[in-house]
Structure formats: C-alpha cells, structure tokens
C-alpha cells in the first residue's frame, strides 16, 4: 500500500466528495485485476477520470443476495455521476436450464463489443469500455433508473382478467419493442446471452424498456439465437400469465379441479416441466393466436422459432386482438 496514493485519494475525495468520510478513503487503483481487493473507499483511475468505490453490486435471486464482487457501484468524482464499473472476471460455470446444464462463459470482451454496437440505442444499457494499465476491459456503465420488469408486473395489484384487459396491451406493445431490439442485436451478429425478466428494466421516467448485462457467452452453433429466443418466450409467459404458473402454485382453489385435471405434460414448458405454457387452459379469454405463440415454448410443440422475427411475426398481430 503506497502512502502517497492514499494521500492523493484523500485529497481527491475531499475536493469532489467532501461528505465522504475521510477515514474511509482507500487507495488509488490502476490495475483492477484483483477485483476482490478493490473495496469501499478505493478510487479506480480510468481514462483520466476517478471512480470512488461505494459498494459491490449484488443480485437478488430466489430471495437471496448474491454479491457480485467484480461489479462496483461507484461515484465518478469529476462529474458526481453514479456509475457501475464491471471489472474483468473470467469464469466458466454450468447454467442449469430445466433438466440439463449448459456451459456458460463470462466474457468482458463480448459485453464491451456490444456496448460499442448499441451506443446511443436507448433500448440497451449504455456505457463505455476503458482499459486499465493491465489492459483489463473495464466497462463503465450508466445506471438505469428504473425497475425490473417482473417487479413492475408483480406490483400491479389486480386480478388476472383485469390485468389482462387493462394492462397487458400496453405491456405487450413495449415487450414487442424489446423483442425487436434483440432481433436488431442478432442482425449485428451478437447474442444477448442472458435474457431474463430481471435483465429487462423499465425506466421510471420514460417507461422505456432497456436490456442490461450482455457478458454471457455460450458455444451454440447450429441454432445460435436459440437461447435468446427461449429467454424471450419465458418473459412472454410471465407477462401473459402475470406471474409464473407452476404445478406447485396452481392448487389452492384458484382453478377448478376440472381445469387442473385437463392439464397434460404437453401443456408445460419444453425446458421446465412444472411451468405451464398453455395458459389459455387457466384463462380462457386469452386469444388462440396469443396462446399459440406461448405453445411454441411448450413440451407439445413440434415447431420452433428459429429467429426472433418469426416470433414477432406471430406476436405482433396479437396486439390488435387485445385492444
């Protein structure tokens, strides 16, 4: 630890963030390779700017906080803006998808490339990549001020039919726009790689949908966009159903025994055998056309969408039926 650096950090923080406790000021970081060692109060120097580390980001999944030590919530000292810095972390891990696992690779270079490609396209998170002194591609991301799509939907406090008739048309229209943005990404030769409903954010001010987190890479070849399409299908199921309807949650009297006993394995998701795809069996007011789109993601399907455009070709006409 170099005392000079610490003095420099204290002076810098005193100048730009005078309310930050002086005793919490750390060191100046120019090599971010050891991201676990970059802590609260440290200042990361990149591209002539300085980023005061406030905390590690965390993802909340299944009720658990999952810390992401390589993702730092920071204050850009020179501007006072909050930023998220994603430091370089290569990992390969198994991702469980229903009954089978796929190898997933975290790729900073992929995310950096996509950030360049979508610069100015506000359907995607925005940011830039600056390399530190060890050539680590650090992504400096603008914060999306908004809420995850699933949280927005869960907060709509009404029964399904009211939701379906009054809220879904607008939500679906925006979701179609989000699908179009993924189709655009595919035409650029890139995949999102991690399409989940908590990676689609709804901005507070504009209500615009924006995709985040592009750093997952997979070695799929014959159907390179299959995983993205599968992700869009899952979000659509959630959107139309207002939540996930699984064999565990459908009991309890919400649906008649007649309805529940009519469900067959083909009505459930191709990947998740407990997640219902054939929602029309629960909610008969769902038009056939929309339900048919959902059934493309069911165990009973024999026809898959090869491209997002194919999905959109069948989803767009459904919007008119809901209005």
């Amino acid at each position, binding site marked *: 630890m170099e005392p000079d650096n610490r003095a420099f950090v204290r002076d810098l923080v005193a100048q730009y963030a005078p309310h930050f406790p002086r005793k919490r000021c750390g060191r100046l970081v120019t090599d971010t390779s050891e991201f676990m060692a970059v802590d609260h109060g440290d200042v990361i120097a990149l591209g002539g700017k300085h980023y005061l580390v406030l905390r590690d980001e965390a993802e909340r999944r299944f009720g658990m906080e999952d810390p992401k030590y390589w993702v730092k919530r920071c204050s850009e000292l020179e501007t006072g803006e909050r930023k998220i810095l994603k430091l370089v972390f*290569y990992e390969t891990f198994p991702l469980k998808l229903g009954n089978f696992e796929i190898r997933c690779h975290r790729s900073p270079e*992929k995310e950096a490339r996509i950030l360049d490609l979508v610069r100015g396209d506000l359907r995607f998170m925005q940011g830039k990549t600056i390399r530190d002194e060890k050539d680590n591609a650090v992504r400096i991301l603008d914060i999306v001020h908004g809420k995850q799509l699933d949280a927005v939907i869960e907060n709509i406090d009404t029964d399904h039919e009211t939701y379906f008739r009054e809220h879904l048309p607008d939500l679906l229209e925006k979701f179609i726009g989000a699908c179009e943005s993924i189709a655009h990404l595919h035409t650029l030769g890139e995949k999102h790689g991690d399409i989940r409903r908590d990676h689609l954010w709804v901005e507070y001010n504009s209500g615009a949908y924006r995709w985040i987190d592009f750093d997952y890479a997979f*070695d799929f070849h*014959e*159907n390179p966009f*299959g*995983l993205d399409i599968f992700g869009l299908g899952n979000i659509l199921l959630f959107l139309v159903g207002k939540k996930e309807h699984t064999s565990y949650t459908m009991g309890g009297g919400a649906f008649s025994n007649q309805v529940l006993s009519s469900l067959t394995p083909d009505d459930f998701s191709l990947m998740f055998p407990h997640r219902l795809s054939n929602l029309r069996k629960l909610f008969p007011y769902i038009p056939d056309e929309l339900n048919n789109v959902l059934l493309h993601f069911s165990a009973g399907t024999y026809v*898959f969408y090869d491209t997002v455009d194919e999905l959109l070709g069948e989803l767009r006409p459904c919007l008119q039926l809901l209005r």
Partner: protein
Amino acid sequence: MDFKKILVAVDGSENSARAVSYTGDMVGDGSAKQIMLLCIERFPDRDLFPDEESWKQRCVAHREELQQFLGEARATLTAKGVHDSRISERYVVSCSSPFADRSTARCSFGTSIAQEILAVLKEERFGTVVVGRRGVSKAEEFLFGSVSNKIIHHAKDCTIWVVA
C-alpha cells in the same frame, strides 16, 4: 441428380465416424462414382477464451484433430473397398479463424453447418448426403439446433442417409 455421387459430412465426432463406416459398408462394392468427405471447420468462439493465445492454441489443436479425422475416414472407406481415386476431401476453413487462411474465397461463418453442407450438395450436384446423428431431445434441439434435422427439413432432390 446422381445418387451415386455421395457427400459425407464429417465433424470429427463418433457419429460422423459411424456415418463414414456405414457409407463404406454400403458402397464398398464399387457402386459409388464419387465420395466427397466434407468437413466444415467450426472453431470455439473467441469469447469463450480469456486471451488470444489460449484461443489460438485450441484452434490449432482442433484443426489437427479434424484433419487427422479426415485421413482416418479415407482409410476407413478404402479398407471397406472404395477405390482411393474415387474419394475426395474438402475442408472448409472457418471465417472467424485466427489463421491467415480465413480470407480464402470460401470460408464458413459457422452459423449453420447444415446450410453450408446443403450449399456444397447443390453446387457439386451430389445425389446423396450422409450425416451422423447424435440423438437430441426436443428441448436440446430448440436450444442447440440439430444439423441432421435441418438437413432433413431443407434438403431437396437428393437422398439423405442419417446414421444414428
């Protein structure tokens, strides 16, 4: 179409080794006019590797494996009675290769091996295409795709032998 002109698509897998062996069993009596062993090079994505060097090493090893496989496939066919003069090989390099030969006139983008096999089939007027099949579930086909299924769906004016 001449059904005795046979295109055998290989990728170094056990399934494609079985496809080669089956072809030899079927036409080792000299009934085939021409057999082409077609290998479309597909390297692992650069994004899966932390640095250029480790990616390049993997690509070098992968290319060696494929070229060795092609040699073994030829040997399998001749051992089963196919005359060596009737066997040809085509190795289509990857367009996203770390090697200089990616700029050759024909390279593979790797986005659909099936479409590339079908393109060669059509251009060279083969009447029979042979592919191995690993056997995938519906869910796997949705996510990963299936070369043999795509060929079955899209091929025209030819016979398809699928060896599972």
